[in-house]
Each structure stands twice: as C-alpha cells, then as structure tokens.
C-alpha cells in the first residue's frame, strides 16, 4: 500500500512538471532552415513565396492579370507582387523628382525582389555634408525639365550605391535586437561594427526605436519604414509615413506637384511591405567540394566576422518593430544565411556621403549581404569591382586583416576555393 501511495504521488508530480516541459518546447521550438528560392525567373512565382499571410489574410493567391484579374483588396502575395511591379505615373504622384517608376525597376533580376544593375547617385560637399535641402540622394529623373536635379552647387563628393536585394528581408526583419547586438559584441575589436538605433516610423509606442538593418547605412529597422522611404525617395510618391515631397536641391517642388499629399494612402506601402515579408531567402548555387573547402577558408581568414553566415529569427508571437508587428510562424524560428552582420564598418570603399544621425564615421557603410551575390557582375557598394578577387582587394580599413589573410595566408588553390564559395551564394 505504501509503495502504491508513493507511486501515485510520483505520477502526480510528473503530471505537474510535464505540461511546463511541453510549454517551453513551444517557445524554444527547434529552429528550421528558412525556405529559399532558386531565383529562377522561369519558375512559377510560387517559388518566391515563404508562406507569410498578408495583413488582408491573403496567402499565395491567384495569378494577377491587369486586364481580367487585377490586384484587389484582400490582397494575396501575388496581388502584392503585382503592385510591387506596377509602373506608376504622374497621376499616381510620381516625382517631381524620382529614380524609376516601379519597385521592380531596381529589384528585378533574376526575379522580382532581387537586384539590378541600377545604382543610385548621391552627392555632398567636400566634408560629406548634404546639399541645400538636406538630401544627398540626387534623383536621376524628373517629370519636368525644370525639376531635374543637377549638382552645380559645390557638391564635390559623389558616390554610387548599388541596389541591394530584398529577398529574405522578412526574415532579416525578424532577427531580434539582442541577436544582432550579441553578434557585434563578439567581433574582434579591430573589426567590430556599429549598429544603429533608428526610429520605426509606423510604431505608436513611447519608445519607437529598434536596431536598423535595411539600407546602405542600416537606416531602417522595419520593412514598412523602408518601403515608405523608398516610395518617397526613389519614386517621389508620398504616403502617411513619408508625407513630405522631396525638395529639389533645397527648392520647393510644389510648382511641379499636381497630386495632393499623401499621394498614396498607405495601401501601396502596405502591399510592398507584405510582399517583401513574404519573399523567400536567396538559395545557394551548386555546392561541391571546392565550395565547402572555400567556406571553411572564408571563416578561417575572418571574412565571416562581418559577413556573418547565420542568424536565427525570433520565436513566433514576438512583437517587434517597437510594437508594430508580431512575428508569425512563417517568419519565426528560421535559420537564415545572409552573410552580413547588418552593422556599419569602415572598409575604405565609401566616399563619405552624409554623416547620418547616430553614425560615428561617415565613411562607414552596412556590410553587404552576400546571399544571392552570384547573380551579380558588379560588386561592392559602388559596383566598381568586376570580380570577387578585385572586391577582396578593395577591402581595407577594418577589413585589412581579412584581406591580408586571403593574400598572404592562402595558396592559389585555396584562393580559388574562397572565390568559388562566394560565387555559390
């Protein structure tokens, strides 16, 4: 009888503990690899979709045909993709100054959301200070000849900035602040990057800040803020998060602007945001023995310090973007391989445009994510290196040690393996 009582008590104790074990297994669910795309434009656009459910409760959706089945409210991934690819006109608020007419004009190749050959042009004075009006971005186009920006005001510093991919950015958004901070804190002091704390435009919280990760200087922490910024700066279309029209080198653009602000009521920005959140990460190319050896060497010579090979996104239900977005299952607990730390480093390749708030060094730029780099043929921020080898040689400043390790620590076979690895990304 006594044994029976003890047995029952033990079972009871086990029953008390078991549910808590079960509970913690939900939050600490084993992370899984994020879905990737082969970036093959010949494949269905379903191969770009990561399963994210849009704010309109839409899934993949039906193919969009502008004549018979245009993008509608209750938007699906495919509706949002069509809006991302849509060409805007003057009646939509395009301009007065702008760079191109659609998001996909720059983020197009090989698949919508990735990259293109397009660089944007920035200018500043000899100290990197912005021109009159405070905007270093010099838009390449205008809706009226008299609105065209020309840098004739002593702007002696020029810089090109190549298009960065938005593939996989939904996962990047879902990396926790602490994860990014811990990664940078573990970097050797000579290579340590600077993370920026920036404002999440759509947040209504008292503290609207988060660690930045999007853009050439990590100037945005959320895809919604990033989308609104790009809509305004690249296409000249204002929205509730970016309600003010760009000036023309300090002059008002009002005489050329016929559409009342905000030109987008926020619907387009929401569509761009949900589209980017729903994109898979760039997938790897063929992996052979040289590529595997190259990856080991890439890590051994410290390239991986800044080109961080792996992050895991936050658990499902985590509220990010200063309270503005709850991470769903499709983006949560995912292992991604962006090969960036999303921190700013001075590696001697920037022209020093724009000392932005909170940045210690105007020559610092955010580590370019190497995922998907095999689709490009111009490399580095300015697109001025034509080979991976040249790109490595251009690394200076905080990347000098890694470059020297490559140059003087590897034989030719090993150098070829490192290059083979980079071109497998």
């Amino acid at each position: 009888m006594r044994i029976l009582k003890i047995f029952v008590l033990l079972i009871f104790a086990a029953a008390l503990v078991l549910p808590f074990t079960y509970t913690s297994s939900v939050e600490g669910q084993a992370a899984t690899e994020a879905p990737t795309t082969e970036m093959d434009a010949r494949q269905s656009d379903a191969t770009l979709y990561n399963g994210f459910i849009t704010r309109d409760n839409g899934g993949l959706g039906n193919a969009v045909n502008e004549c018979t089945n245009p993008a509608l409210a209750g938007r699906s991934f495919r509706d949002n993709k069509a809006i991302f690819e849509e060409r805007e006109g003057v009646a939509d608020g395009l301009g007065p100054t702008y760079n191109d007419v659609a998001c996909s004009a720059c983020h197009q190749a090989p698949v919508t959301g990735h990259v293109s050959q397009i660089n944007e042009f920035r200018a500043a004075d000899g100290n990197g200070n912005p021109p009159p009006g405070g905007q270093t971005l010099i838009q390449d186009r205008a809706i009226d000849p008299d609105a065209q920006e020309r840098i004739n005001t002593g702007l002696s510093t020029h810089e090109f900035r190549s298009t960065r991919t938005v593939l996989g950015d939904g996962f990047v958004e879902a990396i926790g602040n602490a994860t990014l901070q811990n990664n940078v804190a573990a970097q050797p002091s000579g290579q340590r990057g600077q993370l920026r704390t920036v404002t999440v435009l759509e947040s209504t919280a008292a503290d609207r800040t988060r660690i930045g990760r999007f853009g050439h200087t990590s100037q945005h922490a959320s895809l919604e803020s990033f989308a609104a910024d790009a809509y305004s700066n690249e296409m000249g279309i204002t929205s509730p998060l970016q309600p003010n029209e760009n000036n023309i080198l300090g002059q008002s653009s009002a005489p050329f602007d016929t559409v009342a602000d905000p030109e987008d009521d926020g619907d387009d920005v929401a569509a761009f945001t949900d589209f980017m959140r729903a994109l898979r990460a760039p997938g790897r190319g063929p992996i052979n023995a040289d590529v595997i050896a190259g990856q080991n060497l890439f890590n051994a010579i410290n390239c991986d310090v800044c080109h961080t090979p792996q992050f895991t996104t936050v658990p499902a239900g985590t509220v990010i973007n200063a309270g503005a977005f709850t991470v769903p299952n499709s983006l949560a607990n995912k292992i991604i391989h962006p090969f960036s730390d999303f921190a700013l480093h001075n590696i001697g390749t920037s022209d020093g445009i724009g000392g932005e708030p909170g940045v210690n060094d105007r020559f610092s730029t955010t580590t370019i994510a190497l995922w998907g780099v095999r689709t490009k043929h111009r490399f580095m921020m300015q697109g001025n290196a034509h080979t991976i080898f040249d790109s490595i040689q251009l690394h200076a400043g905080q990347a000098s040690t890694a470059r020297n390790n490559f140059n003087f620590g590897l034989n030719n076979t090993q150098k070829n393996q490192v290059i083979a690895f980079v071109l497998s990304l």
Partner: protein
Amino acid sequence: MWTKTFRTSSLFALLTAFLVLIGCAKTRAVQPVAEEPPAPPPATAVALPAPQQPVDPTKLPAPALEHVQATVNRIFQDSVTIDSSHNPSYFVGDFNGDQSQDLAVILKPVSAKLSFLNQEFPTWIAREPLKQVLLPKSKAVANPSIARGNEDPASGQTIRFAANDALLAIVHGYGGKGWRDPEATQTHVLRDVVGDDIRMLPFASVAKAYKGIKPFPSIYGDLIQETLIGQAGFLHFAGGMYEWYDPKNYKPVLGPVHSGMSAMR
C-alpha cells in the same frame, strides 16, 4: 475501501491537474512577447574602434630608401626594382584620405620575375588609368595604354606586365604607422602613369592650385601631380580606384558640374 477511494480520487486529481495545466500552458504559449528594446551601446561592446590617430607628418620620419625597399619587398618580393632614374622615385602622402600615410614608388619589373607579377592572384590591384580617359586623337596616339592594344592578361588579372613597363605603386597606410606598418599591404599598381615632374600635392593646397577650374573631380586626399603626355594633371583616389585628371580633357562620368572648390577634408 479507503484504498479504493484514495485511488479513485488520486486518479481524478491527477487527470484534472494535467488537463488544467495543459490548457494553461497552451494559453501562455501564444501570449505575445515583446522584443527586447535596443540596449544602449556600451562603449566597449558595440562602438566602432577608436578612429585611427591622425598622421602628423612632422612626427613621422622622412621616407628612407631602406624602409621603402622593405615595403616594396613585402608586397612584390624581388619581382620589381625601385626606378632610381626618376627624381623623386618615391614620395609619401595621404592619397586615399584615410588619415594614414601612404607611399608612392616608381618601379621597374625584373625580367626574370615576370611570372610573379603575372600570377593569377596578385596581392595588388593593377589598373591603367589612362585607358579610362578620353583623350584627343593627337594625345591618344601617344598614350601607351592605347598603343599597346589588346593583350592577354593572366587569369585573374587585368594587365599582362612586360619587362619595359613603367609602374607606379601606391601602398596604402594602415593606422598611425602608415605604409611602414606590416599590415599595410593594400597596393594599387598603375601602369603608364609615370610622367614628368611627379610629386605629391597636399590636399590643403588643392583648392588654391586649381582655383576656378571646372569641372573638377571628387578629391579625398593628397594628389599625385605630374605631366603626362604633355598635359599637367594629377592622379587621385576615386571610389576605391585611382583616376587621372587633367583640366583640358576631363569629362565627368555623369556630367555633374562643380562650381567651385570646396574639397576640404
């Protein structure tokens, strides 16, 4: 009897507790959890490393041939010699504007070591700045970069070096020791740009020297001023590469017009 009651009630309690706790556990799991806000950046954890100490030229010794030779050997081994037929054959400055002293040195290839210069993976960036410049026809004829025509560079290279090449190597400095630091190995090797009266023009003097001249390129550091194919101009660091500028023939890439010198550091 007591045993039966105990058994039944124990099992009932067990089942009830299990169900209640499972239910609670599920509820708790879907409670939103706020992301940790950005931690204030502790200076020792996330700040950039201290900026390089600005180079005070008066505190660095003048470049001595033995130091220059040691630097050349560090990068090129014995594949080149310093071309002492030029005066000066080397000089220093902060050509890329990173506040670390750089070395410019004129070199000649060693015939027997061309295979080293033409290796697949050199530890330098080789370029021909004059090839990027549109010169008038009369000058283009005299431009050795154009006259050389097509060549067959080694795999991984953009240039095939020949024994009679005139090379200007610019070794970028690293930290306070500049080009003398063993880590200072980033080197640009420029062919066909060794002209007459070659010298360093300090950044601070650029505005005065080229006052009123436009269009004018972006300037980040000290210049290498000289006369090439009969035209005075300079080599300057531009977006990671060195480019040639002469006021008569310069055509900006995008057509931006620069109205005056404000190229201050």
